[in-house]
C-alpha cells in the first residue's frame, strides 16, 4: 500500500507546483462535468416534477424504465453518442466527436436518468398536505410543482451532487466520445486510465485524490447554494 502514500505525496506535489498539464486537464474536467450536470439538472428537475405530479397511463412503467437506466453502462452511452456524432452518424456534420461539447452531451445523457429518477423520489417524500395547501392557496400547476420542489430542495440537491459525481468520475463516455486526446479532450479519469495502463499506479492515485478534492470543493459549494 506504499503506492497510496506515494500517490498522496505526488498529489500534493502536483498541486503545489501547479503542474501546467494538470491544471489544464482539471479545468477541462470541471468545465465538462459541471456543464453536463447543469444542463441535466435544467432538464431533469422540471421533467421529474412533471412526471411526479401528472397522472397518466404507464407512469409506473415510465418510472421503472428511468430507474432501469441507472444501470446504463457508460460505454453504451459512449457508443450511442459516438455513433450519432461520428462522420457517418446523423449529427456527423456538427463535428462534435472528439470535442468537449460532445463529451458534455454524452455525460448529460448519462446522468439524466439518475437526476430525473431522484427528483421524482425526492418529490414523493413531500407530503400530500403541502400539495393540497399550495393548490388551495390558488397556485397553478406549475407554481405548485415549483413550491414542492422548494420543499424537497435538500433531496434534489443531493441528486444533483450525485449526478455531478457520476459525471466527473465516469470514464466510458469521456473516452468513447472525447477520445482522450492530449491537449483537447483529456480529462482526469481518462488520464487515470491511461496512467494505470502504463503501470504508473502512483500517478493514477495522485490524480484520483485530486479528483476527489475537486469534488469535495464542488459539493461544499453546491451545499452552500442549497442553504440559500
Amino acid at each position, binding site marked *: 500500500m506504499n503506492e497510496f502514500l506515494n500517490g498522496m505525496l505526488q498529489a500534493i506535489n502536483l498541486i503545489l507546483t501547479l503542474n501546467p498539464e494538470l491544471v489544464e486537464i482539471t479545468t477541462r474536467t470541471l468545465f465538462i462535468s459541471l456543464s453536463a450536470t447543469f444542463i441535466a439538472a435544467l432538464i431533469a428537475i422540471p421533467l421529474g416534477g412533471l412526471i411526479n405530479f401528472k397522472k397518466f397511463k404507464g407512469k409506473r412503467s415510465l418510472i421503472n424504465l428511468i430507474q432501469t437506466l441507472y444501470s446504463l453502462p457508460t460505454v453504451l452511452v459512449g457508443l450511442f453518442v459516438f455513433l450519432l456524432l461520428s462522420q457517418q452518424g446523423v449529427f456527423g456534420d456538427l463535428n462534435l466527436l472528439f470535442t468537449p461539447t460532445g463529451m458534455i452531451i454524452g455525460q448529460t445523457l448519462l446522468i439524466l436518468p439518475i437526476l430525473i429518477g431522484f427528483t421524482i423520489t425526492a418529490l414523493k417524500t413531500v407530503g400530500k398536505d403541502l400539495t393540497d395547501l399550495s393548490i388551495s392557496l390558488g397556485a397553478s400547476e406549475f407554481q405548485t410543482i415549483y413550491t414542492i420542489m422548494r420543499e424537497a430542495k435538500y433531496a434534489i440537491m443531493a441528486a444533483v451532487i450525485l449526478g455531478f459525481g457520476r459525471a466527473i468520475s465516469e470514464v466510458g463516455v469521456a473516452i468513447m466520445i472525447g477520445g*482522450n486526446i492530449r491537449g*483537447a479532450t483529456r480529462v482526469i479519469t481518462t488520464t487515470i486510465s491511461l496512467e494505470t495502463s*502504463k*503501470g*504508473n499506479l502512483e500517478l493514477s492515485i495522485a490524480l484520483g485524490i485530486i479528483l476527489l478534492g475537486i469534488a469535495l470543493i464542488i459539493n461544499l459549494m453546491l451545499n452552500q447554494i442549497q442553504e440559500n
Partner: protein
Amino acid sequence: MNGGFQEKQILRVSTTTSLEDTGLVDNLETAFEKEHPNIDVQFVSAGTGIALKYAEKGDADMVIVHDKKKEQQFIDDGYGTKRYPFAYNYFYIVGPTSDPAKIKGMKNATEAFKKIMEAGEANSSVKFVSRGDNSGTNSRELKIWNNTKANYNSSINGSSWYIETGKGMGDTLVIANEKSAYTLSDSGTYLAFKGNITLVPYLTSGKDLLNVYSAIPVNPEKIKGVNYNASMEFVDFLLSTEGQQLIGNYGKEKYGQALFIPLYGKGEPT
C-alpha cells in the same frame, strides 16, 4: 502424480490488450487446457505497463508482450527468467485512402514517417495519431520517430498534426479513421477493425515494422509462489509443433490471412 487426480492449478498469464483483442489467446487456452486438464489458464489483459506490474507483484505467472526493450528490463530486474519468442508479424502504417502525405509505395517506415511529418507541418489536413500509452506499439512508434533523427520532444510531440490518444489500438484506429489520419497499428487489430474503418495499409513489412511476440515466465526465485512449472508447460506448448501450427493458422478463416508467423524453432528475426 496421484493417479491424475491432482488438484487443479491456475496459470495466470498477463498480456497486452492488443493481443487479447485478436482472439488468439482464447484458442491457445482451449488447446492447452485440452492437453493439460489440471491446469486452468487465465489470461489477464491490460496495458503493457500494468501487465508487467501484475507479474512484478506476483499476481501473474507469465507475461506475453511485444516490447523488446521493456521485456529486457523486466528480465534484467530479475522478475523474468528468459524471453521465449514464439511468433512475429509486422506493424502496419495505415492512413486515409486519399493519402495526402503520399507514402503509397514506400518501403522504408522511417522514410514514410519523415514524409508524414513534413506533410503534416505543411498541410493542415495531414495528421498522425499516436497511442501515447507506452504500449508495445507506442514504443515502436517512438523508436521509428527516433530513427528519423527528428527531436521527438521538440518537433513532433505537441505539434498540431500529431494527435495523442492515450488509448488502446482499436480506439486509436477509430479516431484516426474519424480524423482521416495516419497511424501505426499492429496487424491483428487493424484486420479486426478493417470492416468498420476506411483506412488502408501502406507499409506492412520491413525491419522497422517487425513485431515479435514472446513469453516470459516469472522468476520463482524473485517472486514467491508463482507457478513456474505451469509457465514452462505453456512455453513448451507454444513452441511445440502443434502450438506453432495453431498460431500459424490463426486468422485465416476470419480475415483471409494469417495474423502471426510462427518461428518454428528459428531464431528471433531482426
